[in-house]
């Protein structure tokens, strides 16, 4: 696994400056490979819910988004794959760059963007009208992708999601016959079938028991060998276990903002901001 040297940036306490992960010694004018959010704001109608978020998600890393509920973390990741706009009163400002290109530019096909930036939701939701095999292939069918070998895709994705061994003999069973944890892994396999380069996960384990949670965390670490993963979580121990970098969100009854973003180890052992220190020590949240 390619190791990236990380620069740490001290952030000023007064202005709400945001931390950017900088690649070492590289020409800053080279396009950053990966997903990048630049000065993102979000509104629901007149209600300002996210203020000035800038973050980078390098390839082959896991980034955790932590913070108390109501800070806009879910809204933020929905900005990353253009799901935010389905809410009627939604508005945004700023840019989201995928390998240097703004996904919100005019004439960009939002559906194509969502093929490259996938999402797994909090509640496992395999399609009830389809069996396991069809569920995995559903993304391909919905996107009208031309694929030669369906069977190898099914096996490949289920293996990467850590589910192949358990279901390989019953691919025709409905999704509902699986346990909660297995259903969630099926949803992960389904998202992988369209070959995204980033996988967004919105509290994927909060509806699952601890055993399933651990299995999925292992899966996430394996997935990060090929793609970038961004995971919203309320569980700080999970963030500590699974992520390479963490971003801490907070709100003061106004829009959510970024307090600190850094390598996980540093954030949890020696954070730069007292609020971060308080949060990770469980003093509030």
């Amino acid at each position, binding site marked *: 696994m390619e190791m990236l040297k990380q620069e740490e940036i001290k952030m000023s306490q007064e202005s709400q400056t945001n931390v950017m992960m900088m690649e070492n010694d590289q020409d800053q004018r080279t396009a950053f490979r990966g997903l990048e959010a630049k000065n993102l704001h979000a509104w629901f109608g007149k209600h300002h819910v996210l203020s000035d978020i800038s973050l980078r998600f390098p390839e082959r890393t896991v980034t955790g988004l932590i913070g108390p509920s109501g800070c806009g973390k879910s809204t933020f990741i929905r900005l990353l794959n*253009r799901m935010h706009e389905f809410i009627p009163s939604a508005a945004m400002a700023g840019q989201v760059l995928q390998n240097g290109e703004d996904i919100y530019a*005019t004439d960009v096909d939002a559906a194509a963007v969502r093929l490259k930036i996938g999402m797994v939701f909090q509640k496992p939701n395999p399609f009830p009208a389809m069996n396991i095999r069809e569920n995995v292939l559903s993304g391909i069918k919905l996107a009208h992708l031309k694929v030669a070998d369906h069977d190898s895709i099914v096996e490949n994705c289920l293996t990467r999601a850590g589910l192949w061994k358990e279901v390989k003999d019953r691919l025709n069973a409905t999704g509902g016959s699986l346990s909660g944890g297995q259903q969630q892994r099926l949803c992960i396999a389904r998202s992988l079938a369209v070959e995204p380069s980033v996988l967004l996960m919105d509290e994927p384990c909060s509806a699952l028991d601890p055993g399933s949670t651990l299995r999925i965390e292992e899966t996430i670490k394996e997935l990060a060998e090929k793609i970038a993963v961004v995971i919203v979580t309320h569980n700080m121990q999970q963030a500590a276990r699974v992520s390479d970098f963490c971003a801490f969100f907070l709100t003061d009854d106004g829009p959510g903002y970024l307090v600190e973003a850094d390598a996980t180890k540093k954030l949890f052992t020696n954070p730069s901001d007292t609020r971060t220190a308080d949060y990770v020590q469980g003093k509030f949240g």
Partner: protein
Amino acid sequence: MSAVVIETNTAVPQPTTPWKQTRRNQIVSASTVAASVVIAVVIVLLTGLAGVDGWALTFLIVSLLVTAARAFKVDAKVRKEMFVSVAIFGTAALAFTPWMSIFASVVMKGARGFQPNFFVGDMRTTIPDDELNLGGAGHAIVGSIMMVLNATIITLPLGILSGVYLTEVRGRLTFLVRFVVQSMSGVPSIVAGLFIYVTFVNYTNSFSGLAGSFALAILMLPTVARTAEEVLKLVPDDLRSASYALGARQWRTSLLVVLPTVRSGLTTAAILGVARVIGETAPLLLTSLSSNSYVFNPLGGPISSLPTYVFGLLQIGTENATNRAWTGALVLMLLVFALFTTARFIGGKDRR
């Protein structure tokens, strides 16, 4: 290690919606539709396709062709989406046209006869083919109101009592009552009329307003009873528990705690029941028949009502008769509309 500090903008930018269609796209879409309309009109004029339906069909085909043209440079998925959108829009337009046409026709064609004499006069000395400023439908309106009122007087207490029985008292007959009420809500209206015809009308040897009320009551009762039960079921059990825990007896709980909570719901049930039967024709044809003059006695022989008034005029078929029928239909629609609006207004008060 160099530290890089990125200054953020302290000014909050304006919210934008980059996913919405830009001005340019909107203009292109609008002009495409306008162009399709014009092309369709031209084709219709040239080929002599008749009527509105000819134009509509041409417009649909032209839209599909235009969509196909625009879809050439786009991939399969988006192309399918565009065609499906046109198809769904077309189907919806076809689904909505009949009743929109009815609203429009009723207003436009009924407006001519919508004069004061329509509400006051009767047809005792006028024949249907006379000019519209002669005669009227006052007798029909009064007849309708009377019969519906009587039906409501019968149905409302029975329906509410049934609802209370099913939710509060829950005696041994619960299943039977619910089953019978449910089944009878599907009685065809003509069968209800036939039943009253062979019993009451036969027995009293005459058509009458009361017979009409009975027929309407048969149709109203299941609706009112079912709605009353549903409305009462919505009252949370916590409310009843609180009342019982205070030592109140059942009759107090039901009358003083539960029923006042659903007052608006029950009124809505009554109003919706009325709205349903006010336009019923078939049962009245067999029970109250029709009449040309004002009748105020429910047992005083045949009586007119708005539906039978309109129905009778339709049988005649002359222009003035049909115009009167349209005006009658307009008054009927206005009544239903007023009832619905009242019900919605009252029902809205329940939501706190």
